Each structure stands twice: as structure tokens, then as C-alpha cells.
């Protein structure tokens, strides 16, 4: 398993976008700013968001407790979180 530690910000961002594209295939992810509220922008409900986090967990090895979901708003937030908890 790849871990978040060894990944650059750009690699992490690519990983996140790849998983978001699976959930919201119709969205134009190039338009998604790194500071934007991901769930809001892409219209992702709690079920899809959970699936997204499951995939991120599997691919980075970072465990994300439910209590921390609130910190994961934008792409930048998620990248910062993943690096801090790697």
C-alpha cells in the first residue's frame, strides 16, 4: 500500500480527484478550486462522501475517524489532513 507520507501534494491531489471522478463522473474537476467545499461543489451526499473516504483510506492507509469528517472540507484540507495523519 502506498502511504500518504511518500506522496507529494500533487500526487495526493491527483488521487483525490481520481476518486471524486468516480463518484461525480459528470463534474468538471478542472474547475474545482483547491479551497472550495468539495461536497457542496460536487453535490456529494453523506453516502457518497463515506465511499470517497473509504477509497482514500484504502489507497493511503490513513484512518479517518468520524469525528474528523468536519475538517475535510476542501481538497487542500484533505491533503493537509492526510499528511498530518500519515
Amino acid at each position, binding site marked *: 500500500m502506498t502511504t500518504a507520507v511518500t506522496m507529494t501534494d500533487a500526487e495526493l491531489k491527483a488521487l483525490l480527484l481520481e476518486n471524486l471522478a468516480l463518484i461525480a463522473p*459528470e463534474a468538471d474537476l478542472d474547475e474545482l478550486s483547491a479551497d472550495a467545499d468539495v461536497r457542496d461543489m460536487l*453535490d456529494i451526499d*453523506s*453516502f457518497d462522501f*463515506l465511499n470517497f473516504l473509504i477509497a482514500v483510506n484504502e489507497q493511503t492507509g490513513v*484512518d479517518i*475517524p468520524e*469525528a474528523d469528517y468536519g475538517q475535510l472540507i476542501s481538497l487542500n484540507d484533505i491533503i493537509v489532513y492526510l499528511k498530518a495523519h500519515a
Partner: protein
Amino acid sequence: MGEFKMPSLGADMATGTLYEWSVAPGDRVKRGDVIAEVETDKGVIDVEIWEDGIVESLLVEAGTEVPVGAVLAIIRGEGEAAPTPEPEVVETVQASAEKAPPQAVRVPEPPQPATNGKRVRISPVARRRAQELEVDIRSVQGSGPGGAISLEDVEQAAAAAEEAEHLRVSPVARRMAEDLGIDLSKVSGSGPRGAITKADVECAAEKLRQQPETAPETVLEECVEEEKARQETAVPSPPVPAKEKPDFQTRMRRAIAAAMAKSNREIPHYYLETRIDVTRTLEWLEAENLKRSIKDRILPVVPLIKATAKALADVPEMNGFWINDELQVSEAIHIGFAVSLRQGGLVTPAIHNADMKSLDELMVDVRDVIMRTRAGRLRGSDLTDSTITLTSLGDMGVEKVYGVIYPPQVALVGFGRVIEQPWAENGMIGIRKIIAATLAGDHRASDGLRGARFLDALTKHLQEVETL
């Protein structure tokens, strides 16, 4: 010998298209097997069979659209001998003839005057019309039962006769021709199938006035030529839209429109709402989820489903259908869970026997139906079994949902967003996590008092989270 029929996959479904067979004649099938895919307004649905047996024959080819209830396949029961269809058909006919109620016996018709030695079957209305239009009924081919001539047949015969005489004239043109003293038999028509239009008559009158010396025939030919040229250079009329199937989006919208319009037309809704303190419930869930890997975590909607199911067991009038002017309470509790689709629209697949499942089992079911709904892999039982609908719009930030009942169900439960609010209880004020629950009830099936009992039971079960 069982018949596998086109199922009704929703109150609004009249026909379905057999998309693909998943079985072939000779295949052994058992209860619950998916044996066909049916295309409906809600997408392609896997349809299950509800008996064990062997596929005897497939009666409908893939791609065929048939009405709900049409027999699609014959299923032979286990151990049942291969069929001998002919005697069976005869038996059926005899049986139904014996059982036929007396009023079904055909009353002998009053004798009709014989014409040319051949009896003409014609309705009195059609006969009168034929006299008016001077149509010889002996020359009319009847399209009704037993070759009976209908009013429509007479009208068509009259129209055909008129066409044969090349005198199709619009009423306006006829009046105008009379006023102007123009002989219609000399005017060529430029309208559909050579019909003489107002423009033809006007043109003819104009030409005759300008060139009274010329032979009228020549002039009138010019009229038709001019009119034809005008029509050709004119903006072409929009092509008649090909009768092609509207896209999936449109069809889903129409299916929802039909069901919801029916609901608001027929169901006298009443609405009740209550606010529920779910602080302890959510704390419990968070602690529970902390013990689990992310894959096994339970979404907050799952306790809502379970509490609803338990409240329905307490107040069963909310769980069932309004059919034939009476409430049919369902013993089984299958909760139709509203799942929105990213491309718009929603489907409410059933979470089966929700009252009997643990939160973990329900989470598995919720995951399963959401995934299959979004992947377009629903089964017939997902769509037909729901005994009530639950919609949770908390994710979208709304506080309350006032639902429209999905007929023939008799209630819909709605949940809004969890909001931290100042909450007074036992003389104390605190900040608590509050969710608003609403009930849309069918007033034909239940009254507000029972609805209130339901919401009360829902509150109790949602707060007794350990027992869920």
C-alpha cells in the same frame, strides 16, 4: 404450470419493454432468481420469478413492449409433466363457458333488413349517418366485431367517395366559391390530397377578373402552379417529430410526474411534525463507529430507518396501501428509501423487513440499494415491495420535509438536518442536537391522532438507541 407476467413496477407503470431474457427454455429457476430485464421509466430493472420450476417457453421476444400483466413466459413446476397444450386449452375454454355468467350471453340482435341477400351488421347511428351522407352500406367494409359497420366506417366511406370525385373543398372555400359564383368543379385544389382551399378560390376569382377572355381552365391551372411554387419556396413546416422514445431523464421525470400528480389528486394529505432530541443517539453512534473500521461505519440515516420500522410495528396503520377504498395494512415492513440520482430524479427502493434487521444489516442493505440504484441495477422487488417511504434530506441542509405520499402507500416519513438548538427540558436549558421528523399521512387511511402516536413512537425508539 405458472405464468410469468410483466410486473407492475410502480403505480404509474402501464407498459414495460422486455429488455433481455436471463434464462432460456429448459433452464431450472428458483424463487427469487432474476429471469429477465425489463426496461421501465426508472431504468432497466432485474425482474425476479417467485416460484420454482423449469422455463417451459418464452413468449415475448427481447425488445417487445407489452402491457403490465401480459404473460411473458411459461414456467413448469418441478416434477410437472411436459405440457400437452391442446387438451389444456380445450379444458380452459369449456370451463370458462360453463362458468360464464348469464348476463354474458349474447342477446340476439333484432333482425336487420337483408340487402342483396347478405345481412349487413350496422349500428343504428351508423345507419342514420349513412343515409345522411348517401353512402351505400352494402359497399362498406365493416371493421367492428363480426364485420359490423361502425359510424367511423361510414364516415371513412363517405370521405373516400368524396375524394374519388376530386371535390375535396374546405368549408370556407365552398362558401366563397358560392359567393363569387365560381364553379368548383373547374378549380384545381392545391391543399392536402388535392383539396380546394380558400386560396385556390381567391386566386381563381382574381384571374378570372383580370383575364375574362381566357378560357377559365387555363387560368385556373396557373393558380395551382403558382400556389405550388409558393408552397415550395415557403419555410418548410417543421418535420413531424419522429416517434422516438424520450430519453431516460424525460421518462423518469414523467414517471415521477404521473405518480405525484395522482397522489395530490387522490390522497387527502395531513401533515404532522415533531422535533426530536437525538444528541444521545448520535453520541452513541459516534462511539460505536469509533470501534469500527471506516468500511463498517454506520451512517446516521440507519438508526432513522430502524426507529421508523419499530414505530410502524407500534402503529401499523401507517404501513400499507390504500386499495379498493380500504386500507390494507401490511404485516411486513419494507421501507422505501428515497435515493436521489446525480443526473436528477429519484427512486425509492425497498429496505426489506427493516424492523427485523440490526443496524449493521440495515447499513449493508442501505449500501446495497444505493449502489444498485445509482448503477441502474435495481430488481423488481426493490420497486414494488415498499410499504411506506422514508426520505432524508438532511444532507441538503433543509430542516423539514413535507412529503408527497407515493400511491398506493398511505404515509411518508421525512427527516431534515440535525441542528444544534437551545433546548429546554425539565426546567433546564441546554444546547442539543435536534432533528425534525414529519409525517405525511393519507387521511383516508388514518387520522391525525394515530399519526401523532406514530411520531411519538418514533421519538421513543430513536432515543432508545441501545435497543434499536
